[in-house]
Structure formats: C-alpha cells, structure tokens
C-alpha cells in the first residue's frame, strides 16, 4: 500500500495538472501538485529520503514533458532535501507547517529552475510577467496546501510513515 501510494500520488498529480488545473489558472499559473506532495513527504521523512523521492517524481514529470530531462528532477530533489532539513525541528501536527513548507518550496523551486534554465537556455528572459506568474503559483500552491496537508498527514501516518 505504501509503495502504491508513493507511485500513484505523483502520477495522479501530473494527470490532474494537465487536464484540470491547466484550465483553472491563477494569473496564468498552474499549481504544482507534484511539488506539494514532495514537500509533504520531505517534511515527514527528512532530507535524504526526500531528495530521492523528489528526484524520482521530478524525473517522471521530465519524461512526461519530454524536454531538458533532469531539470525538474534535480530541482525537486534539491527542494525536498532543503525542506527535509526542517523535519526534526517542526511540529508536524500543525497545518501551518505544510503551508509555510509549500510556499518556501515554491520559491526555492523557482530559483533553482531559473538558474538551471539560465545555464541551459542562453536567451532566457526573466521579466515582470514571470514574477507575476510565480506570485500566482505561490498563492495557488499555498491555498491548496491547507486542505491537502490535512489529508496527506492522515494518509501518511497510516500508510507512508509508520
């Protein structure tokens, strides 16, 4: 059950993002459900398992998108590693842990992805529209993290983190 959930969650996240949330954008931004579940996993399991899980989930997204394979894998792996460092210092029952964790993860993910694209795509432009889009994603991810953290925490305590 544990492994089934760990595989199904990223798979379903990408499916929901591509067919549902892509039509329901906020300032042009699609929420990153994959990043949200990786953040939750890292918060509950710690940095090293978080990195491996984040990397594999990011790789699945890269393979689906079919471009610059490794960017999302590396970015999400590093984000999970950093967020996972908080694991021993936070009170995981608190819903705000998930909220703050997801917002921080979105910002860190944006910075890493921007750096990776600046290195791989020389004519990459960062303008105010990009920042508005990122703002939209921070709010979207943050709002979704509240109900999702309550659900994920319950499921994770039962099946994922025993």
């Amino acid at each position, binding site marked *: 059950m544990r492994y089934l959930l760990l595989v199904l969650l990223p*798979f379903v996240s*990408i*499916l929901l*993002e*591509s*067919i549902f*949330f*892509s*039509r329901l*954008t906020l300032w*042009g*931004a*699609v929420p*990153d459900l994959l990043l949200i579940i990786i953040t939750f996993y890292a918060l509950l399991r710690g940095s*090293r398992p978080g*990195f*491996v899980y984040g*990397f594999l989930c990011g790789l*699945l*997204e890269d*393979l*689906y*998108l*079919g*471009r*610059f*394979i*490794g*960017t*999302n*894998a*590396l970015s999400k*792996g590093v984000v999970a*590693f950093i967020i996972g460092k908080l694991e021993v210092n936070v009170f995981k029952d608190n819903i705000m842990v998930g909220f703050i964790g997801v917002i921080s993860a979105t910002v860190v993910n944006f910075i890493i*992805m921007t750096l*990776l*694209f600046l290195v*791989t*795509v020389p*004519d*990459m*432009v960062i*303008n105010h*529209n*990009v920042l*508005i*889009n*990122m703002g939209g*994603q921070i709010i979207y991810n943050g709002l979704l993290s509240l109900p999702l953290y309550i659900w994920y925490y319950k499921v994770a305590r039962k099946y994922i983190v025993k």
Partner: protein
Amino acid sequence: MFDFLKGKYFWIILVMIIVSVMIIPMTSTDRQDNTAFEKMVQGLYAPLQRGVNFLAEYLDDLGSYFVNKQDLVAIIQNIEKERQLYLLENQALKEYQYEAQRLKELLDFKDQNLANMDLIPAQVIARSPNNWYSTININRGYSHGVAKDMAVITPLGLVGRVSFVGKDSAQVMLITDREGAVGALIQETRVPGIVVGDAKSKQLYMNHLQFYSEIKSGDQVVTSRFSEYFPQGIIIGKIGEVTSDPEILSKTATVIPAVDLDQFEEVLVIRGYTNPAPQWNLEQPIDEEPQP
C-alpha cells in the same frame, strides 16, 4: 570529518546530480526523437487524458438529460421554473451550436486549403502541467500520419508545432513557448522579424525588426516564406506596442496572438504543404541580348 562519504545516501544523491547535469543538455528540443522512457510515460498518460475528456463530455450529456426531465415536472408545477429551465437548456444547446460552428469553420478552412495543404483535424486533450513550458496534447499521433515539427493551426491562425509524437497522441509546442520561435513578417510592409514567446507570461514578441522600418500598432504579422517549419502567410497576430533600441539599430514589438492560446479546443495539423510559387513578371525579359 569525512564520515558522510560512508553514507549510502551521499553516493546515491551524488550520482543522481551528476547524471542529471549530463542529461539536461543532451535532451533539448533539437534532438530528432524522444527516448523509449519518454514514449512510455506519454503513452501511459494519453489514454487516461482521452478517457477523462470523454467522461467529462459524457457527464455533460448526462447533465442535459436530467435538465430535460426536470423540464417536464416544472411545466406542471411552476411556469416560472419552466422558463428558467428552458434558459438552461438553451445554454446547453448554444454550447452545441458553438461546437458545430467551430467544427464547420475547421471543415471550411480545410476545404479552402485542400490545394496547398494536407490538413488533419485534432482535439486538445491536455495542456501543459508545468508553468515553464507552453504545450498542449492532441489526440492524433503517428498512426494518423502526424510527425515531429509539423505545423499546427486553427482557422484563426498559428498555434505551434509538433514537438513529440506518440502512437495516438502528440505534444504541440505553442508559439508562446520560449523555444517556439517563428520566422515572420509584417504583411502590409513585408518587414521581416522573428516572433518569440515567453511561456511564463504567455506573450509574443517580434524581434530583429529593421530600425528604420515603418511599423505601427495593428499591423498583421504572418509566417514568412523562410520560416523553417511553417507554410507562408499563416496569421500569427497583430502588432501591439513598438519599442526602438537605437543602440543596436533594431525595433521590438509585442504581438497579440490571433488565436487565444488558452481557449481553443480543436486544431488542424498540417501534414504537408506547398508554398505558392513566386509570381514573376514574365512579360518583361530579365536580360535582353544587346542588338548587334
């Protein structure tokens, strides 16, 4: 001090980082074909996305059925309720009418362009789940004759080009994507330039415009004869704001796309095309032999 070297996670993480850094530049959009892993993952998602789309349409139909049934009850119970339900039904019919209209436009467009374009209609089944790329997935793949880099349009204008092909589905890179540059020109003045996108802001810019060229807001931008992937003369959009850069003797303009790239549901894939032949003035000889 170097105890971390003994941990298995350190080596796993190190290998993952090294492998990623090596793979990223090798998997840009320039490569000819995608790997078997990518095809497998895309192949897993395509039927699910088609299935969910089908389910959504079926639920819409089911919704209309219940609305109709409620109509009959409402006629007996309350005339006002009946009127409201008729309005609801009217909305559903309008939706079908719009769909029929869109499909008719696609068909008309296809008929008009049969002479120089081989077109195949396709339905949008998914959109990019990622804010960094601007793509859509369509329900036509190599089994329908779709191939990489084929142009994708609607009757209103250019949409993008095929970036990945599966058996029964394909991924289309929209013109707003950062890597979806299009060779273009302004239809009225024939000023050439390059239209580039920006996936995150979903805007188009026309770069490398001659500094002394006459460009004004509202001018129509179309694909150029020298465009690598697209037939000549397909509408891209209209010029918005024009800014000059005297330092590099060039102008840049924003382009308002002709197609609302967040809204369309059906597209046409151009499987083959021939650009119209240039019109030479044959009455006047180019090189007249000097009379002895």
